[in-house]
């Protein structure tokens, strides 16, 4: 590392203190039985054999995969669509850009309360306008609702997509115009392929978030229901640890999910490299 390297030390120290050390401590818990009350007891690989047979976990994993399958393309499409629509210097675009970002800065809890209101089958505006009801009682209704709700909070992906779109040289588009490429041809053969590497990164980030972090909406909106349809892995980990007092086993799940995530990331990275598009 050259002479500027020391500027990274505060960050590295923060990561060491707040992530690395706690994560290693948590990783050791994965091999114990730990209720939080009594001291941890080393149980070797017992937790892992339990994990393999844990239907509720694999159901949660399935739910997460379903969520990823619905939400990630939806979020990506929304972010890219908005970025492509609003990338020009026009008064309307300039005005609409912050609006697209706005739902993203709404705090999670307020956002969940808002959607509870919107989706309320009796009082909610959506029920009144479209006669929706039972959106959150039907497993698929709840799954789709959470995904749609997530599709509004795409500000960060939107910004990135916008920046990438604007980094494509104008001449390339002019060349395509002179070449006689129509809007659709330009989009599918030029814009999207050129944005592909970054889109892949954005998708990857969403997948990671879905696998690891994103549980507050499910906790607040559906509490994992109905029929466990929205019990995603992070929520399951939360329950296992803090409702059923299985902190050791919860660590096992977290560790396993970390490994799965890392594998997914690695595979994606290899794929991106193979496309020779990785930045």
């Amino acid at each position, binding site marked *: 590392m050259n002479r500027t390297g020391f500027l990274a030390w505060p960050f590295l120290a923060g990561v060491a203190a707040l992530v*690395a*050390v706690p994560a290693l401590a948590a990783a050791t818990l994965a091999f114990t039985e730990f209720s939080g009350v009594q001291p941890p007891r080393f149980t070797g690989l017992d937790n892992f054999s339990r994990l393999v047979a844990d239907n509720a976990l694999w159901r949660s994993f399935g739910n997460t995969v379903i969520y990823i399958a619905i939400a990630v393309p939806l979020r990506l499409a929304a972010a890219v669509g908005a970025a492509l629509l609003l990338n020009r210097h026009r008064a309307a675009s300039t005005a609409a850009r912050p609006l697209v970002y706005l739902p993203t800065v709404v705090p999670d809890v307020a956002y969940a309360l808002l959607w509870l209101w919107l989706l309320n089958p009796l009082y909610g505006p959506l029920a009144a306008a479209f006669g929706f009801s039972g959106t959150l009682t*039907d497993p698929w209704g709840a799954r789709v609702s959470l995904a749609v709700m997530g599709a509004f909070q795409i500000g960060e992906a939107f910004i990135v997509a916008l920046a990438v779109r604007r980094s494509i040289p104008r001449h390339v588009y002019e060349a395509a115009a002179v070449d006689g490429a129509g809007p659709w041809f330009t989009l599918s053969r030029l814009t999207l392929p050129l944005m592909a590497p970054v889109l892949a990164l954005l998708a990857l980030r969403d997948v990671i978030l879905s696998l690891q972090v994103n549980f507050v909406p499910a906790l607040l909106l559906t509490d994992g229901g*109905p029929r466990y349809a929205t019990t995603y892995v992070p929520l399951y980990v939360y329950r296992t640890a803090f409702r059923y007092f299985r902190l050791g086993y919860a660590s096992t799940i977290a560790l396993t999910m970390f490994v799965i995530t890392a594998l997914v990331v690695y595979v994606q990275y290899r794929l991106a490299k193979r496309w020779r598009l990785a930045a």
Partner: protein
Amino acid sequence: MRKLLSVGVAAMLVAPLACAREAGGDPQRPLRVQVSGEPEETKVYRTMVAAFEKDNQDIDIDLIEVPEKDEHLAKLTTAFAGEDPPEVFLVNFREYAQFVVRGAIEPYEGFLEANEVDLANYFPQPLEAFTFDGRLQCMPQNISSLVVYFNEKLFRQAGIPRPRAGWTWDQFADVARALTKGDVDGLGIEPSIIRLAPFIWSNGGDIVDDLEAPTRFTFDDPAAREAIEFIVSLVRDEGVVPTEEEVAAQDLETRFVTGKLGMFLSSRRDTPVLREVLGLEWDVAPLPVAEEPAGLLHSDAYCLSAGGDPDRLDAAARFIAFATGQQGQTITALGGRTVPSLKSVARSGAFLDPTQPPAHPEVFLQGIPFIRRTPVISTWPEIEDVAEEILTRAFYEDDYSVDRAIEELEAATTPLFEEAAGR
């Protein structure tokens, strides 16, 4: 890289989680009392804490209010795992098992004498429930049984007299049918163990094979099966219970408040909300009886966290004595949400307030002798969660039979019973 790794390895070696407990730290620190509930509910605790602090200038209390049960437990778990739990926490009987079984609780029994608590003044059922290993662990603040809340106006319109103690299941079903018309449903009942258990008991059945050392649910027992089938048929065949979608649109409480529900089953906890609804005429009645009356214990108790500093434990015990004593229980009873565990308060105007509904609060007290409880095992909350999902399907899915539900319940919960027995 290497530096970071060595830091991590050092952390593993130190293994801060397993290291010895330190004593409570600064003795001047305020005592922490953690409760959960909605803002209106915790307001009552705030009043009570203020009253205690006024009487006990030497003790400072921090009331930790946690909005929801899940977060309440998460915060407690984290605090226990981090070895810095609040000195006192309020916990529901059915959640308490995981704490007591794992030795998280300092038995309150040792503090009774010093605080001049005479257990004879309390209803015995909650005391028994919070007794584990032969010692009273936590001090119950309330005791509620399951009752039938009913809408007097709807009863009048249908020409139905108010239910009397000892009414039968058939009468119960008839009333539910008679009330069901238009967008009004006769009965509200949730698909959960705690709603079904009183019916099973009343029918002469039981929910587990051994209350002290349960190994399995006994729903396949004919009496239990009959009780479950009775309720399920009300939901599925009779259609006198709101559908799943209807409940999701508006919970039972709100349906009752808006006049869309003739009766619903609940503990005392709904009383304060119903009191605030202007124009709603309502009262409570005892559960119907098959062979014998039966009720299910709803009770919260103050528990002391184990392992604290002795002086602080004494102070905390003093607070518990106050909270569950005459003055404390009077304050909480005035809140309307609790049935006092202290007999004198239960029979006082604070609880039997004739100026406020329900007109027959004694129904709550009359059920107390028949109250029974669920087992105290570490995996009980998880068992209830699992059961709720299966019962939900039995309630609302046409192709999901009671037999299948019983079978799957057994399969899903037996490992959890085994796990608990292994401790």
